[in-house]
């Protein structure tokens, strides 16, 4: 208990430090005294706009995205008892991508509506996966297979659409690479409740979650309606993932890797394991976004590339050592 408290404090401290650092660096570098002036309201107008309208919302969005992906991944892996399950497992990411590609290339829909449409598309794909996998009950293996099919179908149609989107293709690839470049308050406003409320609900239902980690029969003997609760948790994960994809595009590996790291630091049965995982996810994503902003300055590396390069090798190592 004491150890986990120490970890939490350490992560929170790192989070605050990174948050402040991410406020300082960028096209115009600020110093800590600058920031102090800004808090007192004495900075230049440009500095004010840059910090309040660009860097703060972007950092907040990074925290939300990281926390949501990590939680969704943890739920997905726990509930399907598949250590390689990712938030995109249920076809949510591909579904959201497909709807956005469709709207941009065929109907040229206003950017304002894209996140909402992507969200609906993600949920739709998730539900389609559940429908296809449903056979009286929801078996983890069938969810995986149905998810693969839904993902493949969405990806194939997206490819065809990309081919005919002409000038918009470049834009779509920018979106498909995932990232927080140019995102701001608008995206935070559009997505925060879809992320925060499901996340809090999953934290509150931690006892049910811990039972679902066990074998189906054991959980049932302990009086849990396994099928119903599994579906509820999967829906929560789908909601969070769809909200994330619709504002930040497909950002891979976060939901896959973070739960494995947090499992090493804290027991999965610990009542605060899910919040701890979320915190860890927020920290890592903030870090990754900072790297994305700085490593190819003045261009930005897409966030999806950074997370793939950070998380991928780690996962490969994990597989090599043998997953538990």
């Amino acid at each position, binding site marked *: 208990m004491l150890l986990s408290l120490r970890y939490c404090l350490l992560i929170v401290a790192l989070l605050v430090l990174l948050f402040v650092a991410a406020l300082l660096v960028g096209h115009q570098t600020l110093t800590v005294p600058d920031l102090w002036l800004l808090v007192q309201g004495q900075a230049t107008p440009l500095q004010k706009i840059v910090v309040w309208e660009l860097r703060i919302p972007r950092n907040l969005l990074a925290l939300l995205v990281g926390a949501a992906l990590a939680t969704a991944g943890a739920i997905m892996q726990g509930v399907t008892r598949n250590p390689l399950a990712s938030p995109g497992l249920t076809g949510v990411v591909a579904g959201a991508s497909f709807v956005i590609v469709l709207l941009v290339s065929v109907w040229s829909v206003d950017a304002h509506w894209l996140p909402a449409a992507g969200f609906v598309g993600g949920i739709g794909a998730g539900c389609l996966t559940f429908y296809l996998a449903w056979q009286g009950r929801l078996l983890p293996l069938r969810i995986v297979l149905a998810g693969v099919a839904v993902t493949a179908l969405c990806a194939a149609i997206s490819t065809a659409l990309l081919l005919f989107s002409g000038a918009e293709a470049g834009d779509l690839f920018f979106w498909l*690479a995932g990232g927080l470049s140019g995102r701001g308050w608008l995206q935070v406003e559009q997505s925060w409740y879809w992320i925060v409320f499901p996340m809090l609900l999953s934290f509150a239902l931690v006892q049910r979650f811990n039972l679902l980690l066990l074998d189906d029969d054991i959980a049932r003997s302990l009086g849990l309606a396994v099928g119903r609760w599994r579906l509820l948790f999967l829906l929560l994960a789908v909601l969070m993932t769809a909200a994330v994809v619709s504002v930040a595009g497909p950002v891979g590996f976060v939901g896959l890797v973070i739960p494995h790291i947090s499992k090493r630091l804290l027991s999965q049965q610990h009542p605060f394991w899910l919040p701890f995982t979320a915190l860890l996810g927020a920290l890592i994503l903030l870090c990754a976004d900072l790297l994305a902003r700085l490593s190819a300055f003045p261009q930005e590396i897409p966030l999806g590339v950074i997370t793939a390069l950070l998380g991928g090798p780690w996962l490969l190592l994990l597989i090599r050592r043998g997953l538990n």
Partner: protein
Amino acid sequence: MPGPGIVLNEAPWYRSLSCLVGPVLLFLMLLLGCLLLSITLGASELSWQQIVNLFTAQESGHVERVVWQLRLPRALLAAMVGIHFALAGFILQTLTRNPLADAGILGISAGASFTAVLAILGASLFVSGLESHRQSQMILGYLPLLAMAGGVTAAGLIYWLSGAARLTPLRLILTGVVLATILNALVTGVLALWGHSQTEMIVEWLAGSLHGRDWQHLAVLWPWTLSGLTACILLQRPLNLLRLEDDQVLSIGLNLRLWRLFALIVATLLAASAVGVVGPIGFMGLVVPHICRRLSPHDVQQQMLLCVAVGALLMMLADLLGRIIIVPYELPVGVVCAMIGVPFFLYLLRRQP
């Protein structure tokens, strides 16, 4: 214990051949019919008369060009590529004992895509000056080989990462999936960063398309087809045994590691050479082996022969469909394959208890 379907003492070769004569003839007829359809149908309408005249050398110019230089090489290439993907998928599924394995799963498609995108973008860097023409042309000319090299490298990396000789099928698949995901993220990232003025070209490649392919590509591919088919003949018996659990195979006395490595190399080369020429095409390698296993549930030899026939047939039909469905544009064969493949996959899923 060997399952009931696994025949260890094979029947004499002539017996298994004799019961193959009928189906082989049937499939040859189907293939020929499909080839004729591919030659006759297309964006430009040709009559049967014109095509018949072509053989009596009364037609020239347009008809000759369309049939000999556009439709025939494309149809043949489609057939060959279909064979490649089907056999590679069959070997990989047997080897990993996973019905969902195909060229995509070994990271071959992703590796090839990555090098292809780098090559296309790299070639464009030379496009400006006059004297650089040869360099850029050279890079584009070598695109099939470069992409193939990328696919082979990715597969080698996966083999090494999953423990080389000590690999287990499960670890192989997991490593493959993860590496493919990393590479795909890199492809999208590279395109998002630098591909802005070339996405139209690159998307065509990434979708898996036979547009613009001709005899040159056929010349690149046929040595691989030939050697792949030869290797598959050698692989028949070992594959039959590799379906079993590891310790059973060892007890039979098969050199497990060696044959598994050989089978992997064959599958990799088959898939990578095809991906290099037409780009990544999913689902063919997944679906065709399933169909073949249903048509002939027990005999590996028959299944492989069927893979050749069904793979060629389906891919030719898919390309034909893609060519005539939205004239004057084309639907890439990779997309058509997915449209055929996904419903089939779902059907399999529904049927599964």
